[in-house]
């Protein structure tokens, strides 16, 4: 820039500094905007980088298909199948609990209840979602473990069922709020059209509203599933953590999340066991990433469908 005339020099100088400052701030804003992608990519990279040794030495396929998890024997055996099956058992029980209850409660809140009930239900659901998982675990230890032991006359109350029930209860808020959103998004005209044809409220709900909201409810189930599979503390405290292939849901299981949480404190950093635990994390990350991606795409399609 050429030397500005003296009388306006100060002003121009100020504008330049301000411009420079603005450019810097704008750059920071752009960087923060990209932060989500940066962090997500960093998580993937760190998991892969740290599980490199495990894949190299133990073999990815051997780990995924092996049924023996003896990480501290020498040489260590790192078959993840018991952990994956354990996670699936617990998650299965959780889905049996949270899907029917969550969808039915969402139908009641959205279709059959007045405004006051709706408000009260919403704040109660928010409370349920805000209770930390370790507290759910504590309640499970105090209430559900003795209950399951007596009810099914088992040796120990620490089973996949115990963890699954608590996980199901923890996932209920997710399922309710997203199903309720999906039902709410169905245009009022559809309900009115159905009512004009002589259908009752329930017939309308069952034949018109629920099918119209089905993709959103599917997404709700997927997100509940994602939450259940990734939950750590409650299962760690409730499922007994025996890393063997379970024969039924009434046996003790060890989930992927529980394994990482329980064993990471005792491993040699950079060792094979350490690396294998990152590989477990990578499997977990891949599963939940896939589930969330599907749920997100379904929700997006539904949003487009009702936006006229």
């Amino acid at each position, binding site marked *: 820039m050429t030397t500005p005339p003296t009388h306006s020099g100060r002003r121009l100088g100020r504008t330049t500094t*301000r411009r420079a400052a*603005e450019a810097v701030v704008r750059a920071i*804003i*752009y960087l*923060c905007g990209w*932060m*989500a992608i940066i*962090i*997500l990519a*960093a*998580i993937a990279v*760190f*998991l892969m980088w*740290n599980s490199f040794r495990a894949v190299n030495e133990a073999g990815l396929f051997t780990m995924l298909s092996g049924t023996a998890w003896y990480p501290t024997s020498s040489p260590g055996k790192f078959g993840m199948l018991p952990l994956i099956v354990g996670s699936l058992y617990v998650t299965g029980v959780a889905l049996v609990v949270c899907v029917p*209850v969550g969808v*039915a409660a969402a139908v*009641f809140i959205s279709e*059959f*209840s007045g405004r006051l009930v709706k408000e009260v*239900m919403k704040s*109660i659901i*928010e*409370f*349920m979602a*805000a*209770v*930390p*998982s*370790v*507290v759910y675990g*504590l*309640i499970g*230890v*105090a209430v559900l473990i003795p209950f399951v032991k007596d009810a099914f006359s088992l040796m120990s109350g620490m089973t996949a069922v115990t963890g699954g029930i608590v996980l199901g209860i923890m996932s209920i808020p997710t399922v*309710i709020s997203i199903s309720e959103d999906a039902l709410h998004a169905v245009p009022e005209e559809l309900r009115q059209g159905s009512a004009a044809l002589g259908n*009752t*409220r*329930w*017939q309308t*709900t*069952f034949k018109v509203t629920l099918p119209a909201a089905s993709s959103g409810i599917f997404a709700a189930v997927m*997100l509940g599933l994602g*939450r259940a*599979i*990734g939950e*750590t*503390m409650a299962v*760690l405290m409730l499922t007994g953590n025996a890393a063997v292939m379970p024969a039924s849901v009434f046996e003790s299981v060890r989930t992927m*999340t529980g394994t*990482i949480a329980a064993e*990471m*404190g005792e491993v040699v950093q950079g060792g094979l066991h350490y690396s294998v635990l*990152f590989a477990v*994390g990578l499997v*977990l*990350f891949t599963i*939940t990433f896939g589930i*969330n*991606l599907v749920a*997100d795409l379904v929700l997006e399609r539904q949003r487009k469908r009702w936006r006229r």
Partner: protein
Amino acid sequence: MSRSSRTRKARTAEATAKVVTGAIALSVVAVAIFVFVYIVYNGIGALDWTFFSEGPRDRGREGGILPIIVGTLYLIGATAGLTLPIGVLAGVYLAEYAPRNFTTRAIRLAITNMAGVPSIVYGLFGLAAFVLLAGFGRSIIAAALTLTCMTLPVVITATEEALRQIPQDLRQASLALGATRLRTIYKVVLPAAAPGIITGAILGLARAAGETAPILFTGAVFQMRRLPDGPSSQFMALPYHIYAQVTSVPGWNRELIWGTALVLVLGVSIVSVMAAWWRSVQRRKVKW
């Protein structure tokens, strides 16, 4: 004949559906109330002066939880200091700058996906990235960075939503007065959106205060003699204390642990309720 029976069937179905879904909704409420009452009933006895003013003794079987509360507060304070600037700026980017194209769609997808990443995976990431690679060691700062990654999606989404509710007229009026875009955001849009942003951030931080898995390997310890004295100090935290006591102290003191759970749940829910209430008051005060 057949018509009236069909009507009757429909009426019965209607009544049944109402009762069944209502009963299920009621059972959800019952579970929530049970959770709350059970925690209060078991924990209320522990709350006295000693509980809040002393450290744990005999591996946590006796004494109070002062260092544990302080540790949690330090941790959440550090998390807030890191999450707020990044999250608010990211929300500003999405609401004010982001073009409608593929990359913006990818950013949104990344945000919703971050919210679904299991907390234990964040713990692994924090261990590898902040504790080991960045060299922070097991410390408040490493744990706070880990929790920041977890809380960011909440703050970003809340900020973007709050910014989108500010009417376009306000921005245009400010621009017409000669303010730059950045100055408009800083002086006009952000103050107007502050209640929504702050409430969202508080809700996210309250969740973070209850998380155990991300701090397991990034800095929480079972016991320490002194209070944490800086960002590179280790710390005790309420949720980790509950977990550690229940799983590794034989004969853990039931009353003290339920008291700890009560403090945690009350703290999280009172802060959340107050934040939500404040936002609704602010919303009623300002009409666009």
